[in-house]
């Protein structure tokens, strides 16, 4: 286009030359803007739709509950009367602090149980299992994740309730029956059952990349297997351990289904409390929003800890 314009300029007589030059320039500028716009259109076209959606239904709602958490005693449909920190102060009451503490204890206990039970499984799968079966065995272990978490929790009711399978077996063996349903134990069992596959999956990925030469070197240098395990294997898989613990901790902290179905009324956790503020009898949106903010804060704290301590150089000992 530019060339043809240029040719035209040379061919035309003098008075028309200026006009042609202006047209040419305008064309060039228009061309530039068009190219700039179409360069911009592509990223906006790719990133815009999802971005708008996340902005509307993720960021804006989060900002809204931040605002609502500062409105004391807000009932649905009420106008906002005034702001204050009363909702947050209310969380500090012993009843609610106990709920927070219980949630944190459940999450911590579940994380430890998953690590203790999951590490040997991941270790065996990644390093000791027959090589050609490894993938299949791993898929089999995490297969339950594909089924409904609600139904997997429900399955434990069949086992744990007073007339359930566990008590049937205990009774048949002449052992005293246990009342496990609606106790913290049931919550630990249910949560560990629900989240163990995540832990194994992440630890497996970490152990699979373990540099076996380092273990040989440790053995050559006279370390017995135990020492080699604690000084070589564990430090090398520390990022995986941290990531697995974080995932299990965060998921179990916000879990609603297991404490509700297996824990009974005595296992009130933060997510159940939030649920009650919105859909249950309490109906206090302001307080519920403040509790949600605290839950988000706890999760963010866990993530910040991981970023600070979990991401150590895995080759620290090499």
């Amino acid at each position, binding site marked *: 286009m530019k060339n043809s314009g240029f040719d035209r300029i040379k061919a035309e007589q003098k008075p028309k030359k200026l006009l042609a030059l202006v047209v040419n320039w305008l064309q060039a500028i228009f061309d530039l803007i068009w190219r700039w716009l179409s360069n911009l259109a592509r990223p906006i076209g*790719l990133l815009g739709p999802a971005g708008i959606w996340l902005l509307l239904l993720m960021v804006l709602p989060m900002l809204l509950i931040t605002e609502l958490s500062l409105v004391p005693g807000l009932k649905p449909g009420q106008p906002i009367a005034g702001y204050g920190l009363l909702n947050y102060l209310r969380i500090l009451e012993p009843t609610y602090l106990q709920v927070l503490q219980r949630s944190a204890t459940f999450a911590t206990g579940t994380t430890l149980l998953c690590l203790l039970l999951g590490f040997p499984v991941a270790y*065996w799968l990644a390093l000791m299992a027959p090589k050609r079966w490894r993938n299949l065995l791993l898929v089999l*272990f995490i297969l339950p994740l*594909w089924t409904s978490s609600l139904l997997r929790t429900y399955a434990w009711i069949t086992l744990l309730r007073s007339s359930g399978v566990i008590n049937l077996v205990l009774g048949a063996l002449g052992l005293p029956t246990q009342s496990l349903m609606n106790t913290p134990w049931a919550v630990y069992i249910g949560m560990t059952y629900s989240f163990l596959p995540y832990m194994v999956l992440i630890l497996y990925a970490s152990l699979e990349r373990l540099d076996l030469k380092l273990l040989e070197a440790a053995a050559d240098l006279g370390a017995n297997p135990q020492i080699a395990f604690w000084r070589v294997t564990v430090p090398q898989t520390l990022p995986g351990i941290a990531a697995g613990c974080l995932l299990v901790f965060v998921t179990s902290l916000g879990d609603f289904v297991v404490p509700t179905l297996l824990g009974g009324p005595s296992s009130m956790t933060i997510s159940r409390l939030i649920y009650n503020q919105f859909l249950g009898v309490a109906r206090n949106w302001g307080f519920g929003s403040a509790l*949600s903010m605290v839950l988000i804060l706890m999760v963010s704290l866990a993530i910040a800890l991981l970023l600070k301590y979990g991401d150590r150089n895995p080759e620290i000992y090499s």
Partner: protein
Amino acid sequence: MKPAVAANTNHQNRRPSWQALLTILMYSFMYIPIIILGVYSFNESRYGAIWKGFSLTWYRKLMGDERLFFALGDSLKIALCAVAISSILGTLMAVGLSKYRFPGKSLYVGISYLPLIIPDIAIAVATLVFLASVAIPLSLWTAIAAHMVFCLAYIAIVVSSRLQGLDPNLEEAALDLGATPTQALLKVLIPQLTPAILSGCLLAFVLSMDDLLISSFTAGGANPLPIEIFSRVKTGIKPDINALSVLLILASGLIAALSEYFRCKSDRI
């Protein structure tokens, strides 16, 4: 060549290691509840764990349960719509993030992780508050909109991880050979990404079908399956839910197999 490891293997051959024993124990831990659920779905007795004989009563009762079928229909509508739209938005987002640098990109990426990090209950509550504040009545559509948020986040993650392993030269070659950028995207990049997109969709579909909290807060009059199941099992054991569980577990096994197939295919390309 590998004395330590070789010695170790010999040791294992003689006697199973405690890790192997514990692994077997953990596999039983994972599967016994599901198997027992399956076995009891054929139990004649309604109450208690005592076996009263084989029967298909509960499956028959399930087939006549219209409410459950409507609930399944609602769930499928929500999941299919949310996944269908998210597959496009999520893929575009992953491609965009892999191609462009722009100010605020890390913020964008951070926001895209929020649906995966923030607990469901907080997301559900926040979405409800948002919908109430803009006075949108709750319905199947609001549930779809809310599900799309986490669906597109998961699909984008799966697609992104696949994009990292792709050969950028192929797309450049297409551009050099005269393809427009849109052609290069549709004819070169998307076919390479298809297995990853499909496996991301399956993951999102399963998560959407499984979701209880976000639907509880956003679905209004609609009654997806998890809400229906939850309201029934809250009060105790329901043998027809045992039967339903068996069918749903079989279905999810099928989906898992499908997903594994796509993953293998994705790795091979």
